[in-house]
């Protein structure tokens, strides 16, 4: 037994203050009266005055006891307690869903061996239980399980579809083994621990190399801006010891759309592509032959990610936007410059300002067509030109791709001078005719001539340039299957409910981080207006699918750690003392209250 804060005992010096307080209490004159009956009704409280002999009644000794206990509690008394705490770390990542060569699921095998090991521990052991996926976390952080409780928790643990994070697991095991709080750390997982394993850690490794074929990624995109046809691209891998031909079958909304094969050498990764896929909401790709890890043999993609592009067209000539609406997948909203406000950009993917410039930097990618000079936001140095003849352009630039500038007939316009943060892409004799730059994470393009009205095939060079510009601004070719298991995402605007692949509905708020992403599949996002969108979340981690090349987890741990330690913990007694103080004060208060109540009643 000892004291955590022995210096607090100095406060015992206040005990004489209590004696002084009792000395200071009144000593009234004593008078014998015929009856105290009428005095009981007096509500006046006797006043204190200094002097007289102290009356050490029982309240004095009780208050003295309370004071001493309080000082003692502040000093922090403790007793030394021998404990045998255990930390259990169970790997519940997707890799644990793989089957061993004996046909048993890794996770079930790990749970069984873990329960057996726990059954052999000391009966009074307290267990802290950790799971590793989607990120290492403790189960019921405020609770220490008993051995039976820990075994029950192990039985109830569930694996996720999220890959593990070897670095995070290594950090967790390092922290647990070096913290000194645990006599033993037990890790049960698919990944082996790199030698030398610290003696305080007991590892149960259930992983072993198995042949595995995997889909790495599944993306959908349009061939080009405005094209109707969807293009699916999948990466597949052969993590076996023999060359294999893998077959991918793709289906849309349950209807088979096509199959493709790929010959893969051992350890090789290939690409399978599908052209001109029929429209569907949800596309599913399945890989054959089957293997011991079915999770990466299926992947999902949604056409919702190839959504139409919404353009806000700000112009005094709204008729110029009519041609844009004829482009497939494009919707146009026109606003006059006087009516424009930044709130209009909320539902727009990109904005086009024709003969106009916003008063503040737009929050979306924007095209500025013949902006008026001298605006404070972009600060264009524009010079009107009667014949904006194109002289040079960047031949390898995406904006200039397939544009025949020699046939591009540009009449009146304006030439830009040197811009502080935009660079020229197309130049004329009097200066730049097309500028491009990025600011605050958004893309901006300015043209010194008018691209509109969009005439399609009637003005092919101008139309190709317009589509290139719009494609650049809308980000054509973005990965549509970019959501991975275990990686949270922000809830989009207007979404109130997310339906998990298991069918369970989760109420949520827009803008918040959604972290219930432990399952592979299609998540249904329900909007407040009844709208429904789909979001595909895939395992898609070829590194995690390669069971033959899984690197062991390396743990940094102090060399002095012993195999089995007995932890000596200081069990503080202060809270018991505070409870005793509270009880004593309540007792005194109760007695005084009852006494005064009896006095007041007549």
């Amino acid at each position, binding site marked *: 037994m000892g004291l955590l804060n022995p210096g607090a005992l100095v406060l015992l010096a206040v005990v004489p203050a209590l004696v002084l307080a009792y000395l200071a209490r009144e000593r009234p004159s004593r008078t*014998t009266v*015929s*009856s105290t009956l009428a005095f009981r*009704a007096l509500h006046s409280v*006797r006043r204190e005055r200094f002097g007289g002999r102290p009356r050490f009644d029982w309240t004095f000794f009780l208050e003295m006891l309370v004071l001493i206990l309080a000082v003692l509690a502040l000093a922090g008394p403790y007793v030394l307690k021998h404990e045998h705490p255990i930390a259990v770390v169970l790997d519940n990542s997707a890799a644990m869903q793989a089957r061993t060569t004996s046909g048993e699921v890794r996770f079930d095998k790990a749970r069984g061996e873990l329960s057996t090991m726990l059954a052999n521990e000391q009966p009074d052991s307290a267990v802290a239980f950790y799971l590793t996926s989607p990120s290492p976390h403790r189960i019921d952080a405020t609770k220490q399980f008993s051995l039976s409780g820990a075994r029950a928790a192990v039985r109830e643990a569930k694996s996720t579809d999220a890959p593990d994070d070897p670095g995070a697991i290594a950090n967790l095991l390092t922290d647990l083994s070096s913290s000194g709080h645990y006599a033993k750390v037990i890790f049960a997982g698919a990944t082996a621990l790199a030698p030398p394993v610290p003696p305080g850690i007991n590892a149960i490794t259930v992983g072993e190399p198995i042949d595995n074929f995997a889909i790495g990624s599944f993306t959908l995109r349009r061939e080009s801006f405005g094209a109707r046809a969807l293009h699916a691209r999948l990466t597949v891998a052969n993590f076996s010891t023999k060359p294999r031909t893998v077959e991918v079958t793709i289906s849309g909304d349950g209807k088979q759309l096509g199959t493709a094969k790929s010959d893969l050498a051992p350890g090789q990764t290939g690409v399978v592509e599908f052209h001109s896929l029929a429209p569907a909401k949800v596309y599913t790709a399945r890989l054959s032959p089957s293997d011991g890890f079915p999770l990466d043999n299926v992947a999902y993609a949604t056409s919702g990610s190839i959504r139409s592009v919404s353009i806000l067209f700000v112009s005094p000539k709204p008729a110029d936007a009519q041609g844009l609406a004829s482009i497939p997948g494009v919707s146009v909203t026109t606003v006059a410059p006087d009516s424009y406000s930044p709130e209009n950009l909320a539902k727009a993917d990109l904005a086009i300002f024709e003969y106009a410039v916003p008063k503040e930097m737009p929050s979306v990618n924007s095209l500025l067509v013949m902006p008026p000079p001298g605006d404070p936001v972009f600060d264009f140095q524009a010079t009107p030109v009667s014949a904006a003849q194109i002289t040079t352009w960047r031949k390898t630039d995406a904006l200039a791709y397939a544009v025949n500038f020699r046939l591009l007939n540009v009449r009146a316009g304006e030439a830009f001078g040197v811009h502080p943060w935009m660079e020229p892409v197309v130049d004329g004799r009097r200066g730049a005719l097309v500028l491009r730059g990025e600011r605050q994470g958004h893309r901006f393009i300015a043209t010194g001539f008018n691209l509109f009205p969009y005439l399609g095939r009637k003005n092919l060079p101008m139309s190709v340039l317009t589509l290139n510009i719009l494609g650049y601004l809308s980000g054509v070719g973005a990965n549509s299957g970019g959501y991975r298991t275990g990686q949270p995402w922000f809830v989009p605007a207007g979404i109130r409910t997310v339906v998990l692949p298991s069918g369970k509905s989760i109420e949520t708020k827009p803008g918040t981080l959604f972290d219930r992403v432990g399952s592979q599949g299609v998540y249904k996002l329900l909007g407040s207006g009844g709208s429904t969108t789909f979001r595909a979340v895939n395992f898609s981690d070829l590194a995690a699918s390669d069971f033959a090349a899984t690197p062991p987890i390396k743990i940094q741990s102090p060399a002095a750690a012993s195999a089995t330690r007995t932890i000596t913990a200081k069990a503080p007694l202060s809270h018991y003392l505070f409870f005793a103080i509270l009880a004593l004060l309540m007792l005194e208060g109760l007695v005084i209250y009852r006494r005064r109540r009896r006095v007041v009643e007549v």
Partner: protein
Amino acid sequence: MPGLPDEFSAAFLARLEDLRIRTRRQFPGMGKGAHLSPKRGSSLEFSDYRHYSLGDDFRYIDWGMYGRTDKFYIKLFKEEEDLLTYIFLDASASMAYPANDRKFENAILIALALGYVALSSGDRVMLRVLGGSGHRPAPSFLYGRNRIIELNERLKAVKPGGQIDLAQTLARELVAIRRAGKCFVISDFLMMPNSVMRGLGLFTAATMDVTAVQVLGAGELSGQGLSGDVEVVDAESGEHLRVSMGAREREQYRQTLLRLSREIKAFCLKRGMHYAMFTTDLNFQDFFVRAATDLGLAH
């Protein structure tokens, strides 16, 4: 008058002799007296008729009834007997406090005066002391005016002391006296009102005619001498209370005492008892004459 306190001057005794005890009911006495008795007797107070039977004194035949009914009826009259008067004197310790108020001495004077009224009217008087220390008087009736000296001697022998519960004490006394009559209970009644009420209520239940005489000290009533921080000690129970007495507290204390007195008075009047309160700042002789009606006395 020799052998009596100075307050009992010849003039005062003469005024007391004009008084007699008035009762609200008739009690059987022990001898001839001036009070109507429930017994049939020879007073002038008509009581009832009964048929004439052989041997009756034909002087009491009602001839008028005979003329109307042609039957003989004898007229019956009530008996007039003396009144058994009990004087219960509270001699508990509280009667000795405050000492300056001389409560107990005044209570003795009241008891003596009441006793003189009874004796001079030809009634019998028994002194019963509640609590107290010293010589306890014999439980016997005194009869005859000259026995006032003996009553005085008995009263002088009583010293206040001890603690009583009025309800229990009066219950014991009630068992002891056995005969109904007029009871004077002289006390400060400074005890829990329910104890007072239960005690007095026992007497009314036993068909006693009760007069409660409350004796309070003038200083006691006003809280005189109590100021500042005071630890008051109950003279009987020894209970300690610490109070801070100021003008407001004294007034509150006085009002509480008066409220307690009012409660007892209200109880007495409600139960057909007489009630009188004597405070020691009053002139004893004037009080006795002026409060004669409240004391249950009549001229």
